[in-house]
Protein backbone atom coordinates (compact mmCIF):
# COMPACT_ATOMS: atom_id res chain seq x y z
CA UNK A 1 0.00 0.00 0.00
CA UNK A 2 1.60 3.24 -1.13
CA UNK A 3 1.15 6.40 0.86
CA UNK A 4 -0.57 9.44 -0.54
CA UNK A 5 1.61 12.35 -1.42
CA UNK A 6 -0.59 14.95 0.17
CA UNK A 7 -2.17 15.12 3.57
CA UNK A 8 -4.75 17.35 5.17
CA UNK A 9 -5.87 17.37 8.76
CA UNK A 10 -5.83 19.05 12.12
CA UNK A 11 -2.96 19.14 14.56
CA UNK A 12 -2.37 17.17 17.76
CA UNK A 13 0.54 18.80 19.56
CA UNK A 14 3.08 17.09 21.85
CA UNK A 15 6.29 18.18 23.61
CA UNK A 16 9.93 17.00 23.57
CA UNK A 17 11.22 13.43 23.98
CA UNK A 18 7.94 11.64 23.30
CA UNK A 19 9.18 8.09 23.84
CA UNK A 20 7.90 4.86 22.36
CA UNK A 21 6.76 3.70 25.82
CA UNK A 22 4.11 6.42 25.87
CA UNK A 23 3.32 6.10 22.15
CA UNK A 24 2.46 2.44 22.67
CA UNK A 25 3.06 1.00 26.18
CA UNK A 26 4.85 -2.36 26.36
CA UNK A 27 1.83 -4.02 27.96
CA UNK A 28 0.22 -3.99 24.50
CA UNK A 29 3.22 -5.37 22.63
CA UNK A 30 1.87 -8.90 22.79
CA UNK A 31 -0.34 -7.84 19.88
CA UNK A 32 0.48 -6.63 16.41
CA UNK A 33 -3.06 -6.06 15.26
CA UNK A 34 -3.13 -2.54 13.78
CA UNK A 35 -6.60 -1.82 15.16
CA UNK A 36 -5.67 -2.92 18.66
CA UNK A 37 -2.42 -0.94 18.66
CA UNK A 38 -4.30 2.14 17.39
CA UNK A 39 -6.81 1.81 20.22
CA UNK A 40 -3.97 2.34 22.76
CA UNK A 41 -1.90 4.90 20.81
CA UNK A 42 -0.58 7.73 23.04
CA UNK A 43 -2.62 6.31 25.92
CA UNK A 44 -0.06 6.99 28.65
CA UNK A 45 0.39 10.65 27.72
CA UNK A 46 -3.03 11.61 26.32
CA UNK A 47 -5.91 9.32 27.22
CA UNK A 48 -8.29 11.16 24.89
CA UNK A 49 -6.04 10.96 21.81
CA UNK A 50 -7.69 7.82 20.45
CA UNK A 51 -11.14 9.43 20.72
CA UNK A 52 -10.13 12.78 19.26
CA UNK A 53 -7.98 11.68 16.33
CA UNK A 54 -9.56 11.77 12.86
CA UNK A 55 -8.24 10.30 9.60
CA UNK A 56 -5.73 12.68 8.03
CA UNK A 57 -4.79 14.42 11.27
CA UNK A 58 -1.18 15.39 11.92
CA UNK A 59 1.01 15.03 15.01
CA UNK A 60 3.33 17.98 15.65
CA UNK A 61 5.96 17.50 18.35
CA UNK A 62 9.21 18.81 19.78
CA UNK A 63 12.70 17.32 19.90
CA UNK A 64 13.68 13.63 19.73
CA UNK A 65 10.22 12.25 18.88
CA UNK A 66 10.08 8.45 19.15
CA UNK A 67 13.10 7.99 21.42
CA UNK A 68 13.52 4.73 23.31
CA UNK A 69 12.73 1.25 22.16
CA UNK A 70 12.89 -0.03 18.57
CA UNK A 71 9.29 -1.24 18.64
CA UNK A 72 7.80 -0.77 15.18
CA UNK A 73 4.47 -1.04 16.95
CA UNK A 74 4.92 2.70 17.71
CA UNK A 75 4.75 4.08 14.15
CA UNK A 76 2.25 1.32 13.26
CA UNK A 77 -0.09 2.48 16.05
CA UNK A 78 0.23 6.11 14.92
CA UNK A 79 -0.41 5.27 11.27
CA UNK A 80 -3.32 2.99 12.14
CA UNK A 81 -4.85 5.82 14.20
CA UNK A 82 -5.30 7.69 10.94
CA UNK A 83 -2.40 10.12 11.41
CA UNK A 84 -1.18 11.16 7.95
CA UNK A 85 2.12 12.72 8.99
CA UNK A 86 4.30 13.44 12.02
CA UNK A 87 6.14 16.76 12.04
CA UNK A 88 8.79 17.19 14.74
CA UNK A 89 11.76 19.36 15.58
CA UNK A 90 13.80 16.17 15.42
CA UNK A 91 13.29 12.41 15.49
CA UNK A 92 15.09 9.59 17.28
CA UNK A 93 16.87 7.60 14.60
CA UNK A 94 15.25 4.17 14.99
CA UNK A 95 11.77 5.72 14.93
CA UNK A 96 12.74 7.66 11.81
CA UNK A 97 13.78 4.47 10.00
CA UNK A 98 10.76 2.55 11.20
CA UNK A 99 8.32 5.24 10.08
CA UNK A 100 9.81 5.32 6.58
CA UNK A 101 9.94 1.53 6.43
CA UNK A 102 6.23 1.16 7.19
CA UNK A 103 5.18 4.16 5.09
CA UNK A 104 4.33 6.74 7.73
CA UNK A 105 5.49 10.11 6.35
CA UNK A 106 7.50 12.20 8.77
CA UNK A 107 8.96 15.66 8.40
CA UNK A 108 11.80 17.15 10.42
CA UNK A 109 11.33 20.92 10.75
CA UNK A 110 12.16 22.91 13.86
CA UNK A 111 10.42 26.01 12.54
CA UNK A 112 7.17 24.26 11.62
CA UNK A 113 7.17 22.25 14.84
CA UNK A 114 7.56 25.40 16.91
CA UNK A 115 5.07 27.64 15.09
CA UNK A 116 2.20 25.23 14.44
CA UNK A 117 -0.35 25.05 17.26
CA UNK A 118 -2.81 22.37 18.39
CA UNK A 119 -6.08 22.28 16.48
CA UNK A 120 -4.77 24.14 13.42
CA UNK A 121 -5.49 22.72 9.97
CA UNK A 122 -2.57 21.75 7.75
CA UNK A 123 -2.10 20.79 4.14
CA UNK A 124 1.13 18.99 3.32
CA UNK A 125 2.66 18.23 -0.07
CA UNK A 126 5.26 15.51 0.41
CA UNK A 127 6.67 15.91 -3.10
CA UNK A 128 7.75 19.50 -2.52
CA UNK A 129 8.03 19.37 1.27
CA UNK A 130 5.60 22.30 1.58
CA UNK A 131 3.47 22.57 4.72
CA UNK A 132 0.59 25.02 4.51
CA UNK A 133 -1.08 26.10 7.75
CA UNK A 134 -4.65 26.69 6.57
CA UNK A 135 -5.58 28.29 9.90
CA UNK A 136 -2.88 30.98 9.80
CA UNK A 137 -1.95 30.98 6.09
CA UNK A 138 1.67 30.42 7.08
CA UNK A 139 3.82 28.25 4.81
CA UNK A 140 6.86 26.17 5.69
CA UNK A 141 9.24 24.84 3.10
CA UNK A 142 10.91 21.68 4.37
CA UNK A 143 13.40 19.31 2.82
CA UNK A 144 11.57 16.79 0.61
CA UNK A 145 12.46 13.10 1.08
CA UNK A 146 15.74 12.11 -0.55
CA UNK A 147 15.49 9.99 -3.67
CA UNK A 148 16.09 6.60 -2.04
CA UNK A 149 13.49 7.20 0.66
CA UNK A 150 10.96 8.33 -1.94
CA UNK A 151 11.62 5.04 -3.73
CA UNK A 152 10.85 3.07 -0.56
CA UNK A 153 7.65 5.05 -0.02
CA UNK A 154 6.57 4.82 -3.68
CA UNK A 155 6.92 1.05 -3.54
CA UNK A 156 4.85 0.97 -0.37
CA UNK A 157 7.54 0.20 2.19
CA UNK A 158 11.04 -1.21 2.47
CA UNK A 159 10.27 -4.86 1.78
CA UNK A 160 8.20 -4.12 -1.31
CA UNK A 161 11.07 -2.01 -2.61
CA UNK A 162 13.70 -4.75 -2.40
Amino acid sequence: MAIRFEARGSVHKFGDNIDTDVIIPARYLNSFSEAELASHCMEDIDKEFKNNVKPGDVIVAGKNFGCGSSREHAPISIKASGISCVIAESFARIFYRNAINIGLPIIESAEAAKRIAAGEELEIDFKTGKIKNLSTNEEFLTEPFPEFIRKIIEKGGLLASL
Partner: protein
Amino acid sequence: MAMTATQKILAAHAGLREVHAGQLINATLDLVLSNDITAPVAVNEFHKAGFERVFDPSKVVFVLDHFTPNKDIKSAQNCKQLRIFAKEHGIGHFYDVGAMGIEHVLLPEKGLAAPGDLIIGADSHTCTYGALGAFSTGVGSTDAAAGIATGNAWFKVPSAIKVVLTGKPNEDVSGKDVILHLIGLIGVDGARYRSLEFFGDGIQYLSMDDRLCIANMAIECGAKNGIFPVDDVTKTYLKERVSRPYTAYEADADAEYDETIEINLSTLRPTASFPHLPSNTHTIDEIKTQFGKIAIDQAVIGSCTNGRMEDMRIAAAILKNKKTAPGVRVIVIPGSQEVYLGCVREGLAEIFVSAGAAFSTPTCGPCLGGHMGILADGEKCVSTTNRNFVGRMGHTESEVYLASPAVAAYSALRGYICGKEEF
Protein backbone atom coordinates in the same frame (compact mmCIF):
# COMPACT_ATOMS: atom_id res chain seq x y z
CA MET B 1 40.25 10.44 3.98
CA ALA B 2 40.55 9.80 7.70
CA MET B 3 37.77 7.67 9.21
CA THR B 4 36.38 6.86 12.63
CA ALA B 5 36.37 3.22 13.77
CA THR B 6 32.64 3.06 13.02
CA GLN B 7 33.15 4.42 9.52
CA LYS B 8 35.89 1.86 8.84
CA ILE B 9 33.60 -1.03 9.77
CA LEU B 10 30.80 0.37 7.61
CA ALA B 11 33.17 0.92 4.66
CA ALA B 12 34.50 -2.64 4.93
CA HIS B 13 30.97 -4.04 4.86
CA ALA B 14 29.90 -1.83 1.96
CA GLY B 15 32.88 -2.91 -0.15
CA LEU B 16 34.18 0.66 -0.20
CA ARG B 17 37.68 1.98 0.46
CA GLU B 18 36.27 4.90 2.36
CA VAL B 19 33.02 6.47 3.47
CA HIS B 20 32.15 9.88 4.87
CA ALA B 21 29.55 11.12 7.34
CA GLY B 22 26.15 11.55 5.71
CA GLN B 23 26.83 9.06 2.91
CA LEU B 24 24.10 6.48 2.24
CA ILE B 25 25.49 2.98 1.86
CA ASN B 26 24.23 -0.55 1.46
CA ALA B 27 26.15 -2.93 3.72
CA THR B 28 26.33 -6.68 4.28
CA LEU B 29 25.33 -7.97 7.69
CA ASP B 30 27.23 -10.42 9.90
CA LEU B 31 24.29 -11.04 12.22
CA VAL B 32 20.59 -10.17 12.46
CA LEU B 33 18.94 -10.40 15.87
CA SER B 34 15.30 -10.31 16.86
CA ASN B 35 13.26 -11.11 19.97
CA ASP B 36 9.80 -12.33 20.95
CA ILE B 37 8.29 -8.83 20.62
CA THR B 38 9.89 -7.73 17.37
CA ALA B 39 10.40 -11.03 15.52
CA PRO B 40 6.68 -11.84 15.08
CA VAL B 41 6.24 -8.53 13.22
CA ALA B 42 9.40 -9.26 11.19
CA VAL B 43 8.25 -12.78 10.33
CA ASN B 44 4.87 -11.48 9.16
CA GLU B 45 6.55 -8.85 6.98
CA PHE B 46 8.95 -11.50 5.61
CA HIS B 47 5.99 -13.67 4.54
CA LYS B 48 3.91 -10.74 3.29
CA ALA B 49 6.72 -9.65 0.98
CA GLY B 50 6.85 -13.16 -0.48
CA PHE B 51 10.30 -14.19 0.77
CA GLU B 52 10.80 -17.91 1.10
CA ARG B 53 14.33 -18.24 2.38
CA VAL B 54 16.48 -16.73 5.10
CA PHE B 55 19.73 -15.33 3.62
CA ASP B 56 21.93 -17.37 5.95
CA PRO B 57 20.35 -19.31 8.85
CA SER B 58 23.68 -19.29 10.70
CA LYS B 59 23.57 -15.47 10.85
CA VAL B 60 20.07 -15.12 12.23
CA VAL B 61 19.42 -15.06 15.99
CA PHE B 62 16.04 -15.28 17.71
CA VAL B 63 15.96 -14.84 21.48
CA LEU B 64 12.68 -15.28 23.35
CA ASP B 65 13.44 -13.02 26.29
CA HIS B 66 10.95 -10.19 26.79
CA PHE B 67 7.64 -11.79 27.81
CA THR B 68 9.09 -15.21 28.67
CA PRO B 69 8.55 -17.63 30.33
CA ASN B 70 5.34 -16.60 28.60
CA LYS B 71 3.29 -14.19 30.64
CA ASP B 72 0.00 -14.62 28.80
CA ILE B 73 -1.70 -16.43 25.95
CA LYS B 74 -0.90 -13.80 23.30
CA SER B 75 2.81 -13.93 24.15
CA ALA B 76 2.68 -17.72 24.07
CA GLN B 77 1.12 -17.62 20.59
CA ASN B 78 3.83 -15.23 19.38
CA CYS B 79 6.60 -17.52 20.67
CA LYS B 80 4.90 -20.52 19.11
CA GLN B 81 4.92 -18.75 15.76
CA LEU B 82 8.67 -18.10 16.12
CA ARG B 83 9.41 -21.72 17.04
CA ILE B 84 7.66 -22.84 13.86
CA PHE B 85 9.50 -20.27 11.72
CA ALA B 86 12.85 -21.14 13.30
CA LYS B 87 12.34 -24.85 12.63
CA GLU B 88 11.14 -24.32 9.09
CA HIS B 89 14.11 -22.12 8.19
CA GLY B 90 16.74 -23.88 10.28
CA ILE B 91 17.54 -20.73 12.28
CA GLY B 92 21.00 -21.43 13.66
CA HIS B 93 20.74 -19.53 16.89
CA PHE B 94 17.33 -19.98 18.47
CA TYR B 95 17.21 -19.45 22.23
CA ASP B 96 14.12 -20.58 24.07
CA VAL B 97 13.31 -20.85 27.80
CA GLY B 98 15.93 -22.93 29.56
CA ALA B 99 18.65 -21.94 27.08
CA MET B 100 17.95 -18.28 26.63
CA GLY B 101 19.20 -15.18 28.34
CA ILE B 102 18.46 -11.53 27.86
CA GLU B 103 19.65 -11.10 24.27
CA HIS B 104 22.42 -8.56 24.91
CA VAL B 105 23.82 -10.57 27.79
CA LEU B 106 23.54 -13.78 25.80
CA LEU B 107 25.08 -12.88 22.43
CA PRO B 108 28.52 -11.81 23.72
CA GLU B 109 28.59 -14.86 26.03
CA LYS B 110 27.88 -17.18 23.12
CA GLY B 111 30.62 -15.57 21.04
CA LEU B 112 28.12 -14.32 18.46
CA ALA B 113 29.53 -10.79 18.47
CA ALA B 114 33.17 -10.06 17.64
CA PRO B 115 35.30 -7.00 16.83
CA GLY B 116 34.70 -5.56 13.37
CA ASP B 117 31.30 -7.25 12.96
CA LEU B 118 28.31 -5.40 11.55
CA ILE B 119 25.24 -6.42 13.53
CA ILE B 120 21.66 -5.18 13.46
CA GLY B 121 19.01 -6.18 15.93
CA ALA B 122 15.33 -5.42 16.27
CA ASP B 123 15.91 -4.14 19.76
CA SER B 124 17.23 -0.69 20.59
CA HIS B 125 19.89 -1.99 22.98
CA THR B 126 21.62 -3.92 20.20
CA CYS B 127 24.28 -1.17 20.46
CA THR B 128 25.71 -3.23 23.39
CA TYR B 129 28.23 -5.09 21.17
CA GLY B 130 30.19 -1.91 20.55
CA ALA B 131 31.89 -2.87 23.81
CA LEU B 132 33.65 -5.59 21.81
CA GLY B 133 34.63 -3.28 18.95
CA ALA B 134 31.73 -4.24 16.69
CA PHE B 135 29.37 -1.87 14.90
CA SER B 136 25.94 -2.82 16.18
CA THR B 137 22.74 -0.87 16.15
CA GLY B 138 19.04 -1.21 16.84
CA VAL B 139 16.48 -1.24 14.05
CA GLY B 140 12.80 -2.04 13.72
CA SER B 141 11.08 -5.22 12.64
CA THR B 142 10.89 -4.29 8.95
CA ASP B 143 14.64 -3.64 8.77
CA ALA B 144 15.20 -6.95 10.56
CA ALA B 145 12.90 -8.73 8.10
CA ALA B 146 14.80 -7.22 5.17
CA GLY B 147 18.09 -8.22 6.84
CA ILE B 148 16.88 -11.77 7.43
CA ALA B 149 15.76 -12.03 3.80
CA THR B 150 18.71 -10.37 2.04
CA GLY B 151 21.64 -10.10 4.45
CA ASN B 152 21.85 -6.39 3.69
CA ALA B 153 20.75 -3.11 5.18
CA TRP B 154 21.05 0.56 4.21
CA PHE B 155 22.79 2.98 6.53
CA LYS B 156 23.53 6.67 6.68
CA VAL B 157 27.18 6.89 7.73
CA PRO B 158 27.24 8.68 11.10
CA SER B 159 29.54 11.39 12.33
CA ALA B 160 30.88 10.85 15.84
CA ILE B 161 31.50 12.24 19.28
CA LYS B 162 34.87 11.40 20.82
CA VAL B 163 34.52 10.46 24.48
CA VAL B 164 37.88 10.45 26.24
CA LEU B 165 37.88 8.56 29.54
CA THR B 166 40.84 9.32 31.78
CA GLY B 167 41.86 8.32 35.29
CA LYS B 168 40.91 5.41 37.48
CA PRO B 169 37.38 5.16 38.88
CA ASN B 170 36.85 4.71 42.63
CA GLU B 171 35.79 1.32 43.89
CA ASP B 172 32.10 2.16 44.21
CA VAL B 173 31.89 3.63 40.70
CA SER B 174 30.91 1.24 37.90
CA GLY B 175 30.24 1.37 34.17
CA LYS B 176 26.64 2.31 34.98
CA ASP B 177 27.75 5.47 36.75
CA VAL B 178 29.98 6.37 33.79
CA ILE B 179 27.19 6.10 31.23
CA LEU B 180 24.56 7.79 33.42
CA HIS B 181 27.02 10.65 33.97
CA LEU B 182 27.61 10.96 30.20
CA ILE B 183 23.87 10.92 29.43
CA GLY B 184 23.35 13.55 32.12
CA LEU B 185 26.02 15.69 30.44
CA ILE B 186 24.77 15.57 26.86
CA GLY B 187 21.06 14.77 27.27
CA VAL B 188 18.80 12.08 25.84
CA ASP B 189 19.34 13.36 22.30
CA GLY B 190 22.92 14.57 22.75
CA ALA B 191 24.35 11.96 20.39
CA ARG B 192 21.31 11.57 18.13
CA TYR B 193 22.18 9.89 14.79
CA ARG B 194 25.87 9.85 15.80
CA SER B 195 28.46 7.40 17.07
CA LEU B 196 30.01 7.55 20.51
CA GLU B 197 33.65 6.49 20.18
CA PHE B 198 35.45 5.82 23.46
CA PHE B 199 39.14 6.55 23.96
CA GLY B 200 41.57 7.20 26.79
CA ASP B 201 43.73 5.63 29.45
CA GLY B 202 40.74 5.21 31.75
CA ILE B 203 39.36 2.39 29.58
CA GLN B 204 41.95 -0.04 30.93
CA TYR B 205 40.22 0.15 34.32
CA LEU B 206 36.82 -0.76 32.90
CA SER B 207 35.98 -4.46 32.90
CA MET B 208 34.19 -6.05 29.95
CA ASP B 209 30.95 -6.00 31.95
CA ASP B 210 31.43 -2.25 32.58
CA ARG B 211 31.98 -1.65 28.87
CA LEU B 212 28.97 -3.76 27.86
CA CYS B 213 26.87 -1.68 30.27
CA ILE B 214 28.21 1.61 28.86
CA ALA B 215 27.75 0.64 25.19
CA ASN B 216 24.29 -0.76 26.05
CA MET B 217 23.01 2.66 27.08
CA ALA B 218 24.50 4.60 24.13
CA ILE B 219 20.96 4.63 22.71
CA GLU B 220 19.76 6.53 25.79
CA CYS B 221 21.53 9.62 24.50
CA GLY B 222 20.25 8.92 21.01
CA ALA B 223 23.48 7.42 19.63
CA LYS B 224 23.45 5.12 16.62
CA ASN B 225 26.23 3.11 18.22
CA GLY B 226 28.89 3.31 20.90
CA ILE B 227 32.24 1.65 20.29
CA PHE B 228 35.29 0.77 22.39
CA PRO B 229 38.81 0.00 21.20
CA VAL B 230 39.91 -3.64 21.30
CA ASP B 231 42.50 -4.11 24.06
CA ASP B 232 43.78 -6.90 26.30
CA VAL B 233 40.57 -6.93 28.33
CA THR B 234 38.60 -7.50 25.11
CA LYS B 235 40.99 -10.15 23.85
CA THR B 236 40.89 -12.06 27.13
CA TYR B 237 37.09 -11.99 27.06
CA LEU B 238 37.01 -13.19 23.45
CA LYS B 239 39.61 -15.92 23.92
CA GLU B 240 37.24 -18.52 25.27
CA ARG B 241 34.23 -17.39 23.25
CA VAL B 242 35.18 -16.51 19.68
CA SER B 243 37.28 -18.89 17.60
CA ARG B 244 36.72 -17.33 14.16
CA PRO B 245 39.11 -14.63 12.91
CA TYR B 246 38.05 -11.03 13.53
CA THR B 247 39.31 -7.57 12.67
CA ALA B 248 39.92 -4.89 15.28
CA TYR B 249 39.39 -1.46 13.71
CA GLU B 250 40.99 1.66 15.10
CA ALA B 251 40.01 5.21 14.24
CA ASP B 252 42.57 7.12 12.19
CA ALA B 253 44.60 9.51 14.32
CA ASP B 254 43.26 12.44 12.28
CA ALA B 255 39.66 11.24 12.08
CA GLU B 256 37.13 14.04 12.39
CA TYR B 257 34.85 14.27 15.41
CA ASP B 258 31.92 16.66 15.89
CA GLU B 259 33.04 17.24 19.46
CA THR B 260 35.24 15.82 22.19
CA ILE B 261 34.01 15.12 25.70
CA GLU B 262 36.52 14.33 28.42
CA ILE B 263 35.50 12.50 31.56
CA ASN B 264 37.93 11.98 34.41
CA LEU B 265 36.72 8.69 35.89
CA SER B 266 38.44 9.38 39.21
CA THR B 267 36.07 12.30 39.85
CA LEU B 268 32.86 10.36 39.21
CA ARG B 269 30.42 9.46 41.99
CA PRO B 270 27.68 6.84 42.10
CA THR B 271 24.87 8.36 40.04
CA ALA B 272 21.13 7.82 39.65
CA SER B 273 18.68 8.99 36.96
CA PHE B 274 15.45 10.40 38.35
CA PRO B 275 12.06 10.07 36.69
CA HIS B 276 11.28 10.36 33.82
CA LEU B 277 14.41 10.66 31.69
CA PRO B 278 17.78 8.85 31.83
CA SER B 279 19.42 12.29 31.54
CA ASN B 280 17.87 13.51 34.79
CA THR B 281 20.93 12.53 36.82
CA HIS B 282 22.03 13.24 40.39
CA THR B 283 25.04 11.94 42.29
CA ILE B 284 24.48 9.98 45.46
CA ASP B 285 25.77 13.00 47.42
CA GLU B 286 23.31 15.37 45.75
CA ILE B 287 20.51 12.96 46.53
CA LYS B 288 21.42 12.96 50.19
CA THR B 289 21.74 16.72 50.54
CA GLN B 290 19.01 17.87 48.13
CA PHE B 291 16.38 15.14 48.32
CA GLY B 292 16.94 13.34 51.62
CA LYS B 293 15.58 9.83 51.95
CA ILE B 294 13.67 8.82 48.82
CA ALA B 295 11.76 5.75 50.04
CA ILE B 296 11.47 2.85 47.61
CA ASP B 297 8.90 0.07 47.25
CA GLN B 298 10.97 -2.11 44.93
CA ALA B 299 14.54 -2.72 43.79
CA VAL B 300 15.32 -4.53 40.54
CA ILE B 301 18.80 -5.88 39.86
CA GLY B 302 19.23 -7.31 36.36
CA SER B 303 18.48 -6.50 32.67
CA CYS B 304 20.60 -6.27 29.51
CA THR B 305 22.31 -3.32 31.17
CA ASN B 306 23.27 -4.87 34.52
CA GLY B 307 22.42 -8.57 34.51
CA ARG B 308 25.96 -9.90 34.13
CA MET B 309 28.13 -11.91 36.51
CA GLU B 310 30.02 -8.92 37.85
CA ASP B 311 26.74 -7.12 38.59
CA MET B 312 25.50 -10.15 40.52
CA ARG B 313 28.76 -10.35 42.49
CA ILE B 314 28.62 -6.66 43.42
CA ALA B 315 25.02 -6.94 44.60
CA ALA B 316 25.67 -10.18 46.49
CA ALA B 317 28.71 -8.78 48.29
CA ILE B 318 26.49 -5.99 49.65
CA LEU B 319 23.51 -8.21 50.52
CA LYS B 320 25.57 -10.99 52.12
CA ASN B 321 24.38 -11.88 55.65
CA LYS B 322 21.95 -8.96 55.60
CA LYS B 323 18.20 -8.56 55.25
CA THR B 324 16.43 -6.31 52.77
CA ALA B 325 14.43 -3.47 54.32
CA PRO B 326 10.88 -4.32 55.44
CA GLY B 327 8.33 -3.42 52.78
CA VAL B 328 10.86 -3.36 49.93
CA ARG B 329 10.41 -5.99 47.23
CA VAL B 330 13.82 -6.94 45.86
CA ILE B 331 13.95 -8.78 42.54
CA VAL B 332 17.25 -10.17 41.25
CA ILE B 333 17.26 -11.37 37.63
CA PRO B 334 20.46 -12.88 36.25
CA GLY B 335 20.81 -12.03 32.56
CA SER B 336 21.37 -15.52 31.20
CA GLN B 337 21.46 -19.20 32.05
CA GLU B 338 25.26 -18.91 32.33
CA VAL B 339 24.96 -16.03 34.81
CA TYR B 340 22.22 -17.90 36.69
CA LEU B 341 24.42 -20.97 36.98
CA GLY B 342 27.33 -18.79 38.06
CA CYS B 343 25.15 -17.39 40.85
CA VAL B 344 24.29 -20.91 41.98
CA ARG B 345 27.88 -22.18 41.85
CA GLU B 346 29.36 -19.16 43.60
CA GLY B 347 26.73 -19.21 46.33
CA LEU B 348 25.22 -15.89 45.27
CA ALA B 349 21.77 -17.39 44.76
CA GLU B 350 21.73 -18.38 48.42
CA ILE B 351 22.83 -14.90 49.48
CA PHE B 352 20.00 -13.27 47.50
CA VAL B 353 17.31 -15.62 48.76
CA SER B 354 18.57 -15.45 52.36
CA ALA B 355 18.53 -11.65 52.19
CA GLY B 356 14.86 -11.78 51.26
CA ALA B 357 15.12 -11.19 47.52
CA ALA B 358 13.20 -12.94 44.75
CA PHE B 359 15.67 -14.73 42.46
CA SER B 360 14.30 -15.16 38.95
CA THR B 361 15.00 -17.04 35.75
CA PRO B 362 16.41 -14.70 33.03
CA THR B 363 13.84 -12.34 31.45
CA CYS B 364 13.56 -8.70 30.39
CA GLY B 365 10.40 -8.81 32.51
CA PRO B 366 9.97 -5.70 34.67
CA CYS B 367 12.42 -3.45 32.76
CA LEU B 368 9.79 -2.65 30.14
CA GLY B 369 6.78 -3.24 32.35
CA GLY B 370 6.21 -6.68 30.87
CA HIS B 371 5.87 -8.88 33.94
CA MET B 372 7.78 -10.01 37.07
CA GLY B 373 7.62 -6.74 38.99
CA ILE B 374 5.06 -4.27 37.66
CA LEU B 375 4.60 -1.13 39.75
CA ALA B 376 1.30 0.22 41.12
CA ASP B 377 0.40 3.92 41.20
CA GLY B 378 2.59 6.00 43.46
CA GLU B 379 5.24 3.28 43.84
CA LYS B 380 8.94 3.98 43.50
CA CYS B 381 11.59 1.56 42.25
CA VAL B 382 15.36 1.79 42.13
CA SER B 383 16.42 -0.26 39.16
CA THR B 384 19.60 -1.25 37.35
CA THR B 385 17.69 -1.17 34.05
CA ASN B 386 18.03 1.44 31.31
CA ARG B 387 14.85 3.51 31.00
CA ASN B 388 12.68 5.46 33.40
CA PHE B 389 10.08 6.92 31.03
CA VAL B 390 6.49 7.51 32.19
CA GLY B 391 4.83 4.13 32.72
CA ARG B 392 7.97 2.18 31.79
CA MET B 393 7.68 -0.32 34.66
CA GLY B 394 3.94 -0.16 35.17
CA HIS B 395 1.45 2.49 36.27
CA THR B 396 1.89 5.96 34.73
CA GLU B 397 2.01 7.33 38.29
CA SER B 398 4.89 5.05 39.29
CA GLU B 399 8.54 6.14 39.31
CA VAL B 400 11.78 4.43 38.26
CA TYR B 401 15.21 5.59 39.47
CA LEU B 402 18.05 4.16 37.39
CA ALA B 403 21.23 3.23 39.23
CA SER B 404 24.12 0.77 39.50
CA PRO B 405 23.84 -2.69 41.09
CA ALA B 406 25.71 -1.34 44.14
CA VAL B 407 23.30 1.56 44.68
CA ALA B 408 20.31 -0.76 44.09
CA ALA B 409 21.65 -3.24 46.66
CA TYR B 410 22.48 -0.59 49.28
CA SER B 411 19.04 0.97 48.72
CA ALA B 412 17.38 -2.45 49.07
CA LEU B 413 18.91 -2.79 52.56
CA ARG B 414 18.05 0.72 53.78
CA GLY B 415 14.70 1.16 52.01
CA TYR B 416 15.70 4.47 50.46
CA ILE B 417 18.07 5.47 47.64
CA CYS B 418 21.62 5.51 49.00
CA GLY B 419 25.20 4.41 48.56
CA LYS B 420 27.81 2.88 50.83
CA GLU B 421 28.06 6.09 52.90
CA GLU B 422 24.89 5.02 54.73
CA PHE B 423 26.67 1.91 56.08
